[in-house]
């Protein structure tokens, strides 16, 4: 098990190497890395959650809804000490807790198991409702979805409900790599805004822009950040 002193020294520059432990390759396709900067900025600067406090009722929640290509997620969880770096090379093997889609019961710090698209945002809605019902007003709930994943009707149900319900502890980051069928430019933010969300669209590779968007105030409304990255087909 890697000790805490060492895990705390990992930086963003170490992430490609950590991902390489899973794939045997330090070069990764856009599909694997589209979420890397978003997840890093969240875990490095935004989320109030730690390996020691991963079950604390007052922690922030991060629900990875887009469970496809979770190497970036695992690399960040390893860099932040949630899972041992030694687990990474076993990625996808029978004895490894790290699958090609994450399982919350196997991965320390993973709030949900995901892979089938369109489940994270509805569960995040329930999580925000549950925290509010218990008077836990501090924790923030984040979920990461892909732009194509937003096509799932279950997400439309969640978006349409969360705005009018005023779930201001709920946050969604859409990693937009232009992979949705029938996409309309600007349509993602417009769809959320029409449902009463606060929405910002930023460069998904620009850490300062991401941080600023992630921490923008949005009183009384849920908040979405559309993080645009290079197209999947590029």
């Amino acid at each position, binding site marked *: 098990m890697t000790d805490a002193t060492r895990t705390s020294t990992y930086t963003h520059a170490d992430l490609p190497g950590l991902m390489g432990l899973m794939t045997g390759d330090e070069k990764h396709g856009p599909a694997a890395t589209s979420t890397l900067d978003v997840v890093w900025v969240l875990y490095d600067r935004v989320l109030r959650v730690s390996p020691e406090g991963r079950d604390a009722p007052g922690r922030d929640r991060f629900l990875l809804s887009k469970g496809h290509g979770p190497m970036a997620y695992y690399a960040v969880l390893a860099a932040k000490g949630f899972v041992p770096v030694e687990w990474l090379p076993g990625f996808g093997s029978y004895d490894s807790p790290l699958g090609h889609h994450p399982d919350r019961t196997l991965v320390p710090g993973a709030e949900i198991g995901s892979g089938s698209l369109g489940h994270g945002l509805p569960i995040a809605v*329930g999580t925000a*409702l549950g925290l509010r019902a218990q008077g836990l007003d501090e924790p923030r709930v984040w979920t990461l979805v892909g732009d194509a994943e937003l096509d799932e009707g279950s997400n439309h149900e969640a978006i349409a409900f969360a705005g009018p319900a005023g779930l201001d502890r709920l946050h969604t980051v859409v990693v937009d790599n232009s992979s949705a069928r029938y996409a309309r430019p600007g349509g993602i933010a417009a769809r959320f805004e029409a449902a009463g969300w606060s929405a910002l669209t930023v460069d998904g590779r620009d850490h300062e822009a991401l941080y600023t968007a992630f921490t923008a105030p949005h009183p009384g409304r849920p908040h979405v950040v559309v993080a645009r990255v290079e197209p999947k087909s590029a």
Partner: protein
Amino acid sequence: MDTMRDRFAPVVSRLLDEDPRVAVVLAAIGTDGFAGATRRHPDRVVDVGIREQLLIGAAAGLALTGLRPVVHTFASFLVERPFEQVKLDLGHQEAGAVLVSAAASFDWPAGGYTHMAPGDVALLDTLDGWTVHVPGHPDEAETLLRHAVAAGDDKVYVRLSVQANGQALPVDGERFRTVREGRSGVVVAVGPMLDAVLAATEGLDVTVLYATTVRPFDGAALRRATEAGGTDVVLVEPYLAGTSTAAANDALSDVPHRLLGLGVGRRELRRYGRLEEHVAAHGLDARSLRERIAGFLGAAVRV
């Protein structure tokens, strides 16, 4: 007599008052009954509108924060429409919930097939770890609802119906109950089927077991009943015929036995009308049941 569903909102409203863990999640059906509870507990009674995927997903999220969600709508929309959410958001996430359905197999025949769900229990049978209560009387429904909510973080399905027996029996949320004893066969009557089964087996030399909790299936009770009652077994279920034959078969796997599964037919009837007409059309009225049970058990059953 009031219906099982008439008991649902009052019982669960009291549980909301008593237990800060309890939350109710609705999808625009059954909201009127919770008007008072919504005023008292605005954050723990949630109506997500006509959004059944969100209904289950949100319930899972509530459970992951430590609450005990009670989720209600018609069986078709509760189990069938959001089935992947039931499988993944509850099962795969290891999040518990109490799903409480109404409309059963064909409680509203005039409403047609869109509001019928004879396959709900069979569908849940493809998943692991569900407790399934099928009360046969409003009093039993009340008891089983309380059991369901109190069952820690278990995944529990409570199937409410307007079909009911005339008298309630004591139910414990676990075991089958012996209602009648005989030597030439064992008939398991599930929930609202008991009155018809008792009428159908009047004067026959059979043991009648009453099942209101069908999952886990009380195989030990069936096994014990067959020791005196013989290993010819008839299951009479108010949902898809044969739903519990695999469970009964497992209970008797090491003894020679015969099994007949009676219930709602698979073929879509495409008829409206009244409940009794559908009961008869599926051969679940007392006269049809007597014919089929006696026919299966043979001459020895007649005393």
